[in-house]
């Protein structure tokens, strides 16, 4: 059974068609890049997979189930924005994740925080933007989830933080799980991807392995993306 499946999935916001009859399947054990320009529907797709939006048409399934309480326990989601309560201390967030997610490895999170010298007594509001992003990622990647949905994990951070984030993802994800990294910064993520999905104006333009793109088109994913989305 695919870990994630979309069947003619559509989402409309008023007159805007954010997703248009998207059909795709993702298998476990792959790192997938969900690549597309801004406003192409990447965030909408990930929000639908997390039950944060309801489809207008079609369906989206995680391990055969519609997003909800059951699927939340196997999906580890990193939204594209700061989403942790600013008043909270890191220790309180560790408590929260430990309380709600059975697959959360507190020791792993503590080790990663220690390595970055992030004090557990530090409040989120006391952190710089980069540290906040790292703390969020550490919480998300310290789960042994079956599906990681990471929305723009490297957007808006400096190159050093970008490297740290990608390294953290690759070192810490559950190898039996699927990882979806949504981004438009293709050159930075290309090295860690197994597969790519090109999305534009709510439609899937391409789903392929990175190797197939390189073999068939003789160019990198970044170059091929520029070719496909040439303005």
């Amino acid at each position, binding site marked *: 059974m695919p870990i994630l499946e979309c069947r003619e999935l559509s989402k409309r916001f008023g007159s805007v068609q954010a997703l248009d009859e998207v059909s795709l399947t993702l298998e476990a054990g792959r790192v997938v890049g969900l690549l597309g320009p801004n406003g192409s529907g990447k965030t909408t797709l990930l929000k639908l997979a997390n039950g944060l939006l309801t489809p207008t048409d079609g369906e989206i399934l995680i391990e055969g189930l519609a997003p909800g*309480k059951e699927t939340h326990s196997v999906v580890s*989601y990193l939204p594209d924005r700061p*989403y942790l309560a600013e008043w909270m201390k890191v220790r309180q967030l560790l408590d929260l994740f430990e*309380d709600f997610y059975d697959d959360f490895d507190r020791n792993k999170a503590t080790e990663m925080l220690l390595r970055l010298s992030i004090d557990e007594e530090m409040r989120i509001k006391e952190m710089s933007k980069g540290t906040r992003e790292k703390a969020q990622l550490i919480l998300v990647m310290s789960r042994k989830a079956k599906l990681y949905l990471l929305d723009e994990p490297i957007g808006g951070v400096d190159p050093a933080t970008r490297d740290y984030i990608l390294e953290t993802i690759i070192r810490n994800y559950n190898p039996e799980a699927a990882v979806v990294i949504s981004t438009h910064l293709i050159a930075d993520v290309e090295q860690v991807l197994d597969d790519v999905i090109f999305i534009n104006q709510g439609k899937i333009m391409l789903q392929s392995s990175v190797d197939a793109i390189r073999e068939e088109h003789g160019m990198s994913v970044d170059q091929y993306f520029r070719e496909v989305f040439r303005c």
Partner: protein
Amino acid sequence: MLGKLIKHEFRATARIMLPISGAVLALSLLANLSIRGLTGSMSEIPVLRIFFLFIEFAFGAAIVAAGVMAIVIMVSRFYRNLLKDEGYLMFTLPVSVHELIWAKLIVSLVWFLVTSLLIFLVCCATALNISGTSLAVVIGEMPSWAELRDALKEIGVYDKLVGLTLKMVLLVLLSILAVCLHFYASMSLGHMFSKNKILLSIVFFVLISFAFNMMKMSIGIAGFDALNGTHPMNDSEVMTQFMSRALWVGIGTQAVQAAVLYFATVLSLKRGLNLE
């Protein structure tokens, strides 16, 4: 999971409500001391008199602030924790929407009750202080629960009073829940839209108020019509029956209001969640 949500909700709210409750208690103590100062010889010194009056004012303000903060916390926790960015975490926890709402309701209810009890106690203490009565004397003169129960049983009103009290408690609890759900439903409905979320929440709040006030007014008018010219105040038996029925109607009305608003909240969060 509901227990865990409640635990974290208390953690989030206690950091504001506990210091406020502590401030009310501390200012109550100071205010009661300053009452003695105002009534004693020290009040003849103008600076001290102004200081004592300032303490009394601060005490009054702290009482109002505690009541207002209980409402503000109830509204802001729902808004910030579920409808703003924190919602990305809360709605992806392995919990149901029902559990998310009940955790907020239960914790808000507890803070309303704690704050009300605190305000009642500090006001009683101040009243005793102003009247110059010692608390020990009041407690000493109070009949024991057994004495009170026997006396009420002797005049045959014990069961009725217990019944009326229980109904009143139920009515108060349901009313608090209905008030919370009025805010929750208005905000959830308003935030289903992509733009003008706060303005639409206010519009829904007013519309819901209007609809339920109309319903209550109709029920009230029907209730007075049903009295059919009788005057319950003239007969204690009829009066008790009238009060009992009125309380049941109140309980029923509040229960219907709370249920409708609860399902409106659940449906809009389940089907229309639209986080920015």
